[in-house]
């Protein structure tokens, strides 16, 4: 399992990459391993607004479906349409496969997320 440096991690196995006010959000390597082959993604529309913890979409394998929860609050500014037509990318490159870009309202929310080290420990506990 890979955990990248420089990202924030949530307990629901999402990662956040910050560029200014923009947060790129995807699911972690651990999440894609647990799901298996991803066959379908349902993502929000640009312009939709969410609070941290809201379900913003669904990622599905053949025999499982799990909600994608946004770790941060804000407005969706971009959705990765390429992923919905090529869902296997999520398995091949989970950290390259951002699902949405959110314009975030409150940077303090990032403090509630885990560092790579903490996330590694968290995944170890869950085993």
């Amino acid at each position: 399992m890979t955990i990248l440096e420089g990202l924030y991690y949530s307990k629901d196995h999402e990662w956040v990459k910050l560029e200014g006010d923009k947060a790129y959000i995807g699911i972690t390597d651990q999440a894609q391993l647990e799901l298996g082959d991803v066959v379908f993604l349902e993502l929000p529309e640009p312009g939709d607004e969410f609070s941290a913890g809201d379900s913003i979409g669904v990622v599905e394998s053949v025999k499982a479906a799990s909600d994608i929860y946004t770790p941060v609050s804000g407005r969706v500014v971009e959705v990765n349409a390429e992923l919905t037509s090529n869902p296997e990318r999520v398995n091949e490159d989970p950290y390259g496969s951002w699902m949405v870009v959110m314009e975030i309202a409150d940077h303090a929310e990032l403090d509630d997320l885990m560092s790579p080290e903490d996330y590694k420990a968290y995944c170890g506990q869950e085993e």
Partner: protein
Amino acid sequence: MFPYVPATDSDKRYMLDKLGLDDIEDLFKDIPDNIRLKTGLKLDQPKAELEVMSSLKELADQNLDASKAAVFLGAGAYDHYIPSVVKHLVSRSEFYTAYTPYQPEISQGTLQAIFEYQSMICALTGMDVSNASLYDGASALAEAALMAADATGRNKVLVSATVNPESLRVLKTYLNTKGIELMIIPMHDGVTDTEVLKDKAGSDTAAILIQSPNFLGYIEDLSEAEKAAHEHKALFVISVDPISLGILRTPAEWNADIAVGEGQSLGSPMSFGGPGLGFMACKSALVRRMPGRIIGQTRDINGKRGFVSTLQTREQHIRRDKATSNICSNQALNALAACIYLSTVGREGIKEIALQCWHKAHYAASAMTRTGRFSLAFDQPFFMEFPITSDLDPDVIQSSLLKNGIIGGLSLEKYYPELKNTILYCVTEKRTRLEIDTLCSVLEGLK
């Protein structure tokens, strides 16, 4: 000994010894004594095969069935011809004693048949995708309404008063319990009142539901309803008679988003109203909102064509409370019957059957109305059912017909109080000219 329970006393003794137990009762010790049934069930003694059959024959003989009477009753269940091959093939126990195809490698028979069923429902309706079946036409309409509410995120459904009243009742139950508003659009001249419909449709409308041919047999002009639905980004749902699609404009040609209907006509007997077959087909964009099982084509590891249940994350066994529906068991065997039926009648047969229904129904309607004493309730195009009004009490008509070996039509006043002394007749391809003429002469002989 019971023929369906092979264990002998010595088998049981041997098994109990293996378990280190004295008595079968020891296996039931987890059931608290308080709630054990101590007296035994108050049911009859077991019966032998001959005795069971004779009891059942006695009951069956108290019913007047279609082999003994000419049926002019439709209204949602239909006496169509079922080719012999259908019953023979559906009765192969490799089909009917199988479970839901959970292990695709040893369920290819069922899976491929359902895939073919889906393909033929799409061919009939013109829609993009079909599911593997729902319980019946009524619950299919209700599921379509729920699906539309889910897809649009809206909470109000408009339905025409000309939809089959059985379906309307089921729709009310499903929507009421879910807290979705149902508005009934009145009938005008035997068809949906499109002026009211246009007026009521709005940005809060999840779906517009219309049946054609409608409950009175009339073929609805759906262009205004379609515009009203799509102008407000609501879904347009049409309930159809699959036999009529042998000739009539398809739901896809009316630009429906979802097509549903009762498929009993496709090779299943009337069976006192069940089991029938609910079918549902929709545009591809809605496929992930569809309730029920869907079968897809794929390949095995050697590249050989095969079939599997697919898009299963919609279903209750995976999504639980977030599933698109709670349906698990469906009407697979009736879908198989429909698949065999449609293969048997084929491209030409479905047309010929629909045409015969059309011609015979129109012959019957003109023969019944020739004296002027009986008349069509409304002047609208119809398919194989039509309402006939007279000054006679429907009960009197019904009992006179019964005396002449005819099961007459349905009195409509119970459903539409304004339609007094009006009977809905149905003429399928099974009815002969002689039967129709007999019906007419009985009617004309009434005082």
